[in-house]
């Protein structure tokens, strides 16, 4: 199952996390670096990546963090999730960051560092290169 929640067309390198992301409080707005010591992306920057993670968690105000990182040019190029949650859905919609929901199988098959072309108008929106 694949759902396109926010449309767009981008190319980039995958940064993948196996853990959900709480945008409120664990992402540095100025740098896009994950500041949560217990997170598998700790000290990594999400800037200009294709961010692949299970889902967002935490307060829906976290959508404003997505707005901040977009304003500061430290946001991901696109996001790919297993599950839609209101924070990430509204945050991406607000800031026009493409967002796709994919099946568990496809999620497992994506690896860190993969190059992806994403085009939501295409019949095959995610192309692995």
């Amino acid at each position, binding site marked *: 199952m694949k*759902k396109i929640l926010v449309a767009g067309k981008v190319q980039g390198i995958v940064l993948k996390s196996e853990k959900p992301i709480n945008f409120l409080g664990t992402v540095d707005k100025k740098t896009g670096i994950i500041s949560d010591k217990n997170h598998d992306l700790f000290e990594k920057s999400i800037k200009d990546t294709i961010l692949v993670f299970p889902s967002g968690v935490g307060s*829906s*105000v976290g959508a404003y963090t997505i707005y*901040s990182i977009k304003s500061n040019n430290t946001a991901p190029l696109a996001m790919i999730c297993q599950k839609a949650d209101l924070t990430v859905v509204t945050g991406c919609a607000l800031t026009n960051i493409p967002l796709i929901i994919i099946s568990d199988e496809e999620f497992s098959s994506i690896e860190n560092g993969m190059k992806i072309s994403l085009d939501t108008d295409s019949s095959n929106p995610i192309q692995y290169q």
Partner: protein
Amino acid sequence: MDLTREEESALKGEQGEVMQMAYRILVATGEATDAEKLIPIEWAHLAGVNYNTIGDAGEEFLSGISKDARVKVKTTLNPMGFDIDNVSKYGLDENFISKQLSIRNSYEIMGVTPSFSCIPYEIFDIPKEGTQVAFAESNAAIHANSYDNLKTNKESAFSALASALTGKSPYSSLRKEDTPNVTIRMKVKNPNELTYGMLGFFAGKVGDTSVNISGLGEMDRRQCKAMCGGMGTSGTCAKFLFGEGDSDCEKVDFDEKEMQTVHDELNTAEKGDLITLGSPQLGLEEISDLAGKLKGRSFKKRCMIFCPRTVKDQARKIGYTNELERAGCEILSDCCTCLTPLINKDDVDAVTTNSIKGAFYLKNSTGVDVNLKSLLQIVEDETR
């Protein structure tokens, strides 16, 4: 999702950037919740007002969109951080005040009614049965769905804003027919408002989008609000139905043991340095009742009372304000226990309250300890 030609055109940006953003939010939320279309709503209630929660990003965003954005339907909004009438007494920093006033100004430019209240269901007329609304405040959404015969989903600050700007919302979840798959059986005897708050908190954790609750007797307004507040705090559940539900519903008991677990999670102090009443904010009925209970008595410590501005004005005319101030209460409008910067952990270690919603945010956001007591117990212990 099926969109009309006009909706498609807005999504493409042909009606300006603000409308494009609003429709992007509605379509993304709609796709995520399997809505087949957008439907009209008649009233939006916004969250994301307090500078304490939305911060600089929120202030800048609202200031930016207010240049073009105008609400299309009746739109009310949640409390902000303080009451401008008495903010000077609380030593709040200038930056907070000016950023908060900028947020207020942006909403007013957009055409939002400056209600600054989390109890819109108590201070505005309720539309006719079955009316679709979009309430971002969780306790208000639950109250609207469960008591007022209105229909709303559990909205985010942004989906409600998008609904205010377009007059539409995705047709999904609680807007359609919804049958709960779990029933909470209320077993606790002689419940007060604190019990109902804990029941709501428990039910919100158990339920998904809606729950049945059986074993409820007559509830007064304070108890209803306590239950809605508790439920909205702990999960994603936005509606309860009175009764046992279908026979295939999973049954979960709420008895002394379950209540104790909630109590132990939220009650972290033996006593408070100050008392707060109002989360959700107090309505006129509760203010009147409180004035009656405080006849001839005075608080031994600070007691902050939070209510909507319209209620504060009415209370002053009727004379309740004098009564309450004489008893040592501080009466604040436009703000609420939850997330107000007027309660600061640098000055306060623990707060006494009868609100489960208030307790949750005092503990997790303000960062102070909480002492839970029913209103009757507060009046008995904390006044003379």
